[in-house]
């Protein structure tokens, strides 16, 4: 947070003051490793992903077959969708800790509606249940957005309160129990494929493209990045800050709700105490590893996708090599710090 600015100031004190013409050739020598540092900052996640794939192809048994890829595709979508929303929120300089709880709420709403009366449900059609589950995510997202944009509470605390309360709400909806779901359509979500690729992966891919278009090609996308870059300047420039922020959190809520419903379909049940647990950490990790700075002002969609794939594949690789889960968690922690460190080194010397 604020420590970055100090370090940057200290760093720049070591460098002679820039002339108005900018970079001089003799100055370039004073900043060692600028070439590779800049390259790593921009492309580090792809390099890491490439190396990991190469390693797996060479050394991991049963890696290069269709089943492994399909398993990866089946595991990715929930985290990917949540990470896309998280990337947008982080782009505005905020953070959304409530995504896991939102997944649980969407799952609980869907289960409550679709479950038969014998299981304390409302026996409604599945499509209505899915729609209202997504609607619940929208409500949570708008609520977050209003607390952040109108009440001007810091995003981390605003969404922290829903992280705590949201899972409680989901448990209240299902009565604290796991609700098993025997709906044919959920089997379609779980197993259906088009051109050998699961439906859920198609959904994730389409939504990824949609988010990328929104961020890169629409006024809304520019406003989002502007707010993250400089909030006060955005206000002065007449950007509708409140509306934009509320929309961003709403999108994050909707994406989390879809992720929650996909996770429910995979689990064949709604388990509010398990669905989406710790997904906020996985999503923040993927976004940060993908090169989106936590300080906002920049959203990297492709980098986020690569970050999700990288972290997922890393876990799979470690499991395939019989590395215990505890060690892979330690490795994950080291990777988070290393990824951000590389970006910082690059930023201060670029």
């Amino acid at each position, binding site marked *: *947070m*604020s*420590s*970055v*600015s*100090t*370090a*940057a*100031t*200290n*760093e720049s004190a070591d460098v002679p003051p820039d002339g108005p013409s900018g970079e001089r050739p003799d100055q370039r020598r004073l900043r060692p490793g600028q070439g590779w540092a800049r390259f790593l900052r921009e492309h580090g996640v792809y390099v890491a992903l490439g190396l990991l794939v190469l390693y797996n192809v060479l050394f991991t048994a049963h890696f290069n077959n269709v089943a492994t890829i399909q398993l990866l595709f089946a595991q990715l979508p929930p985290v990917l969708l949540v990470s896309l929303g998280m990337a947008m929120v982080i782009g505005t300089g905020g*953070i959304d800790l409530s995504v896991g709880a939102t997944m649980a709420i969407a799952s609980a709403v869907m289960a409550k509606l679709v479950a038969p009366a014998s299981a304390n449900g409302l026996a409604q059609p599945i499509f209505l249940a899915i729609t209202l589950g997504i609607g619940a995510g929208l409500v949570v997202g708008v609520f977050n957005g209003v*607390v952040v944009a109108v*009440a*001007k*509470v*810091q995003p*981390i*605390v*605003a969404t*922290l*309160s*829903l*992280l*705590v*309360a*949201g*899972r*409680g*709400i989901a*448990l*209240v909806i299902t009565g*604290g129990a796991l609700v098993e779901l025997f709906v044919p359509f959920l089997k379609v979500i779980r197993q259906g494929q088009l051109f050998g690729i699961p439906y859920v992966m198609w959904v994730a891919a389409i939504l990824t493209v949609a988010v990328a278009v929104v961020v890169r090609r629409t006024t809304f996308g520019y406003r989002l990045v502007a707010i993250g870059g400089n909030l006060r300047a955005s206000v002065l420039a007449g950007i509708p800050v409140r509306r934009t922020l509320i929309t961003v959190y709403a999108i994050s809520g909707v994406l989390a709700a879809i992720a929650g419903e996909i996770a429910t379909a995979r689990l064949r049940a709604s388990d509010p105490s398990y669905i989406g647990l710790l997904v906020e*950490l996985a999503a*923040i*990790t993927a976004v*940060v590893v993908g090169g989106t700075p*936590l*300080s906002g002002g920049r959203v990297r969609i492709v980098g986020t996708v690569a970050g999700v794939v990288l972290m997922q594949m890393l876990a799979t690789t470690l499991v395939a090599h019989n590395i*215990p*889960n*505890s*060690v*892979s*968690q*330690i*490795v*994950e*922690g*080291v990777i*988070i*710090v290393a990824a*951000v*460190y590389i970006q*910082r080194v690059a930023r*201060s010397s670029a």
Partner: protein
Amino acid sequence: MTAVPTVPPTVPPTGQPVHLIPAAEHGSSARAARARALTSLISRNGAVAVLILVMIVGSATVPTFGTADNLRNTALAASFLAIIAAGMTFVIISGGIDLSVGSVYALAVILSAEMSKYGSVAAIVVPILACVLVGLVQGFVIARLGLPPFIVTLAGLTGIRGLVFFITNEGNDHPSVPGSQFFETLGTGSLLTIGNPVWITLIVFAVGWWVLNRTAFGQAVQAVGGNDTAAGLMGLPVRRVKMTVYAISGFTVGVSGVLSTALSGGGQEARVGNAYELSAIAAVVIGGTLLAGGVGSIVGTLAGITLLYVIQNLIVQGFNLNSYVQQVVSGFFLLIVVVLQAVLSRRSASG
């Protein structure tokens, strides 16, 4: 042409005192000043006031709440997170955040139980040293390498939890304290019928208050949190202060973990302390410490954590509601507090 009026000197001659305009006692500026003072009083002591109010209402409406036994047990239950929140207060006032406390707490709990077979001293010293070391490493990465505290301690949350699972054979071991050791009296013993952890909590907060408000280091922490560039220009050792606050957080988490093992006699799971960081941050924020840093109250933190536990206790005792309704109430309580804080502080800033 000579009609240029002589400009009266705006700067008073040297030696003459500069007259300050006395504060108005009536009118809009006075109202604003009073509102500002009231707001600052509320945001600094709001948690204490609400706590007293909730205690009075609770004792009056819920007969089992005000009993000595219930209050004693609630205080004992709250003491572990309270000690953690004391360290968290330092980190947050310095402008940082420590998400790793839940995992580091688990490290202390497990290490204390593992080390107890080498005696009481090892069971106390080794876990606390390990936690201070974790804090120092995180502080080093944050202060020296300039990485955001949120990310570094998020990595700590993940990595240290992994380490705890590694030590406990993927969570299958539940190390317990062999026989009865001297250090267990720290957790199980009591003085004047109040459990030792409660007394230790009070000592931690008393020392914490003194360090924060009465020492140069405490002032430096507040200055760094207010504006670290300005603090650096004033000649404060910004990096050292930042490293130290994470070490303090590690220390308090270590003390809390050792006490927990001392009370339980070990046998706790590797996932112990999960989500403690959220409760600790919530308590600090409810206590009136701004997440932005620079402003905070350690007494408020004590009131904040007590408030969280008292409300939970009242829900269980008075309304007989289950744990997930407690979660909902705790979450929305936190939300109301932070919204009020935001609104009040904005009003005082614009007033």
